[in-house]
């Protein structure tokens, strides 16, 4: 367990996008998304240009486009909301396929969908082309507080340990006949989370002691 493992979204490669220093990529992502969010939503051609930029970066990184598209399902609950907006928004009505919808609502829904989708695609591109450890180095170079970077580092390092701990608990409960689909399992699930908290907390204490015995003074080298 540790630094060598890629995380769920990382797609290994050796392209120019992969090799770019992480702090530049994070800066580019934040700058790009701020520009996108600040763009008035009725400048339609500009959004085409943004999409072209994201898609060409993905193509340049040689990460399959389908790999990114398939992971965009994370956006679905938000898409549902955006599709509802034309029906609940105020303003003059217009007919689309025989349904009366709000005109400014339609425009707003387009803006939400376009900006949200660009955001998810751009973030996925960063996650797919950058190892978590590199992102941490980049964030430190961007002068994020050292302690925040350390906490992130520990979280990422132990994420798989803690989640697979939980996975083993779930498997053993299922094999003893618990039905996770029933609300009657709430107390069992909650006790599992309680046990998971105690295990994680105690693991944290052991990690701290192990670090102290190796000369930790509050800063990582």
């Amino acid at each position, binding site marked *: 367990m540790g630094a060598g493992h890629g995380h769920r979204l990382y797609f290994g490669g050796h392209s120019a996008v992969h090799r770019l220093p992480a702090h530049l990529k994070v800066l580019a992502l934040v700058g790009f998304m701020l520009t996108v*969010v600040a763009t008035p939503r009725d400048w339609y051609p500009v959004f085409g240009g943004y999409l072209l930029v994201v898609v060409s970066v993905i193509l340049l990184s040689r990460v399959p486009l389908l790999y990114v598209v398939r992971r965009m399902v994370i956006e679905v609950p938000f898409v549902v909301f955006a599709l509802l907006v034309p029906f609940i928004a*105020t303003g003059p009505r217009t007919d689309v396929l025989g349904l009366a919808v709000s005109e400014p609502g339609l425009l707003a829904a387009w803006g939400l969908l376009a900006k949200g989708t660009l955001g998810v695609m751009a973030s996925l591109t960063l996650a797919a082309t950058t190892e978590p450890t590199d992102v941490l180095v980049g964030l430190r170079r961007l002068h994020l507080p050292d302690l925040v970077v350390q906490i992130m*580092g520990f979280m990422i390092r132990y994420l798989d340990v803690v989640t697979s701990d939980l996975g083993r608990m779930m498997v053993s409960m299922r094999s003893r006949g618990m039905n996770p689909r029933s609300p009657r399992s709430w107390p069992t699930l909650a006790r599992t989370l309680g046990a998971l908290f105690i295990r994680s907390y105690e693991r944290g204490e052991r990690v701290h002691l192990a670090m102290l015995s190796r000369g930790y003074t509050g800063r990582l080298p």
Partner: protein
Amino acid sequence: MHVPDGFLDAPTSVVTGVVAAGGVAVALRKARGELDDRTAPMAGLVAAFIFAGQMINFPVGAGTSGHLLGGALAAVLVGPWTGALCLSVVLLVQALFMADGGVTALGTNITLMGLVGCFTGYAVFRLVAAVLPRRTSSIAPAAAVGALVSVPVAACVFTLLFAIGGTAPVDTGAVLTAMVGWHTVIGIGEAVVTGLVVASVVAARPDLVHGARHLVEARELEIRRAAA
């Protein structure tokens, strides 16, 4: 629940970003007071726990399920400052590595779920715990009430941000009704789960629960003799 990019306009996103950065900076200093040099490993592991906790889906019925947000839970278990810090790190990791929640909306997400969620939950928890009898069995119900209140309050703050910097022309009253109504339902689920989780930790290791620490410290050592 994670606000995506483009939901609030750029000025509002920047302002919430500044608020979040300030809040995290204070939380860092205070968390170091709560945990001293254990801060990095302990907060990291608690953040990993919160992330794992958010992965469990609790069945709500009719095929839908919800998951824990964890603000009040974290505040009661590890203290409000460490809890807010852990939630902020979870949101940061989710935005950067899992594309969950927009990068430009990160400040909004940290403000809503990290700061408002944790501190409302903790404040209500302390209020209720002060009213209930001073026993460890009062901790879990107080935590549940804290969780119940924290979720709709976060929804209210979201509505306020939406009224200031929203990008959709939806009537603010309608947003408020929908958000608070829906999040009260979520809050009930959050309350039940938070109460049960806190109860199980209090039963096993009351010394680990930040919100119960004053009760555990007040306990006197009892030496009981086995009946001969």
